[in-house]
């Protein structure tokens, strides 16, 4: 009796010659084994032919390349912006402008930043709960 795993190994050429001969001897006496071997063999040939016919469509390199480079661009942009902002604030606070002018300008800047941040947070929350976000056009 040849186990099914053994038949698969024979079909796929993964059996050592001695065991392969045993499978061949068993097939001479077992119609069922021979029938299985022929059916699976035909499936194998047709699946291989499917693979040979599969077309590959262009390269994905440009998209992959963009996705790899993008985080580096964002990091550089954010770090640069943060440094410029910090320097600007420092330069403005230590300048000779009057305290009232600094307080008013600071209030406007902080208010704008808070509005922008809350709008961004709302948008983010909408995106997370959007039931259609997985649907492509």
């Amino acid at each position, binding site marked *: 009796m040849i186990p*099914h*795993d*053994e*038949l*698969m*190994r024979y079909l*796929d050429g*993964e059996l050592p010659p001695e065991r392969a001969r045993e499978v061949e001897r068993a097939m001479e006496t077992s119609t069922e084994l021979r029938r299985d071997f022929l*059916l*699976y063999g*035909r*499936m*194998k040939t*047709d*699946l*291989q*032919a*499917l*693979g040979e*016919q*599969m*077309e*590959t*469509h262009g*390269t*994905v*390199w440009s*998209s*992959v*390349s963009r*996705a*790899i*480079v993008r985080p580096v661009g964002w990091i550089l942009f954010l770090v640069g912006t943060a440094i410029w902002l910090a320097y600007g604030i420092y330069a403005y606070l230590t300048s000779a402008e009057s305290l009232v002018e600094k307080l008013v300008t600071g209030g406007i800047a902080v208010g704008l930043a808070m509005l922008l941040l809350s709008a961004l947070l709302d948008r983010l929350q909408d995106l997370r709960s959007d039931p259609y976000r*997985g649907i492509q056009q």
Partner: protein
Amino acid sequence: MTPPLEGAAGEGDPLAAGMPMKDPAPAPVPGTAGAERAVEAELIRKCVAGQSRFYEPLVRAYEPVAQRVALGILGDADGARDAVQQAFIRAYDALDRFDPERSFRPWFLQILRNQCRDELRRRKAGFEVQRMDAVLAQRLAGDEDAARDHRRTRARELLWTALGRISVEHREVLVLKEIEGLSYGEIAETAGVPEGTVASRLFHARRALREALEEMGVEYP
């Protein structure tokens, strides 16, 4: 068989031009699997060092394999392309954890397999059976071969539909074995199972395919 790294040996390529390598290993024989692996390891080392342009030869060498595997698992060309793209991005991010003693192919195919599974979970509909003529190249046959070719084409159409009816685990192993021609050892490495399990899984996959064909009520030619 490992696909040739054409981009790595092309004109103007620093590797081909003999750029100095850190920790040089004994020179592998050109044209052998060892030589290919050494080139891959060097490309990966450069990518990990931040030179992302050295990733291009790897992408170009492995994307035909990847597209066939993804197409076999997902069933539609657009989904396969997206999965391949995401898998290459994921692989790039994980390159610092890649063991250069191993071959890139099974490691990458493992990432691709996980990506395809994520995609199947996400879309919920599972395998999308696209018409074969939308997925496969049509071969023109002479008149005398037409009848025989028609029978074989019909058989392949049936198989393609039946592939969509079996579990993803079974489909994966069939795709890796029959469509990509991986050995049992390579399948074991890709699927993360012992080599002894591969034969058993292949048997169950082939039997499932056979049962799917029977359930479809068609006689497989």
